[in-house]
């Protein structure tokens, strides 16, 4: 079943730079997709358009029935509540502990306290930080902080998880641990789209790979690897 349909999408920034050209994509429910490409190839812009941080200049992006391009600024939260987002710089709130950071999303939605506790603990356990729930972000390693960010992104059970270079700040070993966590989440049914530079990860995971070059979709491999792409 199709979760995302991208049709003729183009993104031109105000300064005149076109980051994405004429993009067409279909993404199935439960897919794990790597978006790869050199810096400035449009990976991040694509991720940003998927969570409506940026609005496409042309074309259509439909996620789970919502036309993202037509979504008004004050309605963006409706889309964001259906997906989880993980960033390279974690974006945790330093004054909240692990539990509070993860529970933050549910609290905003007005979920009852008992449910918050249950879901938050489940998410923290899933990312393997059960014994660090009371710690504050500055006491955690980079990998652990990213796990917290992932737990926060999935705590509401989203159908789609967007990751923008989630391993960009982490060493290889830690990156692989994060990928294991993401694979578990994917196996539970969540569609994952991940923009990355990391050659090893892509090669090892053997997932669908989308290669962007200068804002254009160049290749789309069903079970690809970084090495399929010469010149990247």
């Amino acid at each position, binding site marked *: 079943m199709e979760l995302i349909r991208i049709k003729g999408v183009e993104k031109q920034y105000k300064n005149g730079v076109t980051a994405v050209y004429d993009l067409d994509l279909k993404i199935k429910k439960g897919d794990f997709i790597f978006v790869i490409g050199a810096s400035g190839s449009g990976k991040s812009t694509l991720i940003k358009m998927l969570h409506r941080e940026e609005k496409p200049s042309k074309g259509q992006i439909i996620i789970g029935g919502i036309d993202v391009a037509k979504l008004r600024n004050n309605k963006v939260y409706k889309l964001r509540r259906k997906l989880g*987002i993980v960033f390279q710089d974690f*974006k945790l*709130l330093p004054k909240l502990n692990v539990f509070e950071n993860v529970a933050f999303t549910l609290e905003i939605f007005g979920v009852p306290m008992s449910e918050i506790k249950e879901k938050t603990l489940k998410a923290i356990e899933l990312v393997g930080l059960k014994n660090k729930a009371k710690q504050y972000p500055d006491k955690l390693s980079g990998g652990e902080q990213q796990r917290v960010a992932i737990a926060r992104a999935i705590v*509401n059970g989203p159908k789609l998880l967007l990751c923008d270079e989630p391993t960009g700040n982490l060493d290889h070993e830690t990156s692989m641990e994060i990928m294991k966590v993401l694979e578990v989440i994917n196996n539970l049914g969540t569609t994952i789209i991940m923009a990355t530079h990391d050659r090893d990860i892509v090669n090892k995971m053997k997932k669908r790979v989308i290669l962007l070059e200068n804002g254009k979709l160049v290749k789309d491999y069903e079970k690809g690897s970084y090495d399929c792409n010469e010149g990247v």
Partner: protein
Amino acid sequence: MKVFRILGRNIRDAFRSVFRNFSLSIASISCITITLVVVSISVLSSYNVDNFTKLMKQDFTIVVFLDNKIDQKGITEIETEIEKIENVESYEYESKIDIASSMMATSDIFENIMKEWDETENPLQDTFLIKVKDTNYINQTANKIKQLEGVTLVKYGEGIVEQLLTVFNIVEKALVVVVLLLVFVTAFLITNTIKLTIFSRKKEIEIMRLVGSSNINIQLPFIIEGLFLGLLGAVIPTLIVIYGYTALYLNFDGRLFSPFIRLVHPEPFIYVVSLGLVSLGIIVGMMGSYAAVRKYLKI
């Protein structure tokens, strides 16, 4: 239920946030405190000056001297005419005998001379003492009375009264302008301080947006926090108004420097001013937060 749950959490979070961002909260609270203290002092003084000018105006009196030749009937006619004049608040008749006796009571010299007079020798004149409703029209009222038959002279301190009135009117208007300006400056200062403190919490707002907070969801805790800050900032100014002003009033026995300058009685004055200060603190705190957060939202 959900609405109450969200509201309850927002109140809790706003309260926590005041303590979590303690130094920023202190910055905002002290800014609110200082500006509200200045506002409260200016309100207290301007209200007192205003009160003083009002009391002075109330003391303005028109004295109407009557012709000694007219009889009781003539006096009654003049009284009826005075009653008809719209600007007349109250009047009092004082016969020349009353005046003579009150003068005699004030000094022995007067008494020695005046007690010799008989009814026909008394050179004083019967008078009406008139208080007006609007002192700005005292001149016109005096002129009207002057034209009545049997009135020989009308005095109300011409010249000085007009000058005083002009000064008082300027002072009253200037005070309103000063207080309004101060309130405006306060609002501006507080809003900017809160804006600065919220600037440092840009990341928090960004994350709230990313995880799916609606705009109102993001603004609400900050607005409630602004309410707390305003409320806390108003505590010291309110105490100054309630205890400080009462102490001042009691210390000077309600009169400042001279018996003419009467202070406004503390009750209910101080409570009205305090209520005003608390409301101003809360409103400005909330507005400041609202304006500051709005800047970081995509609307």
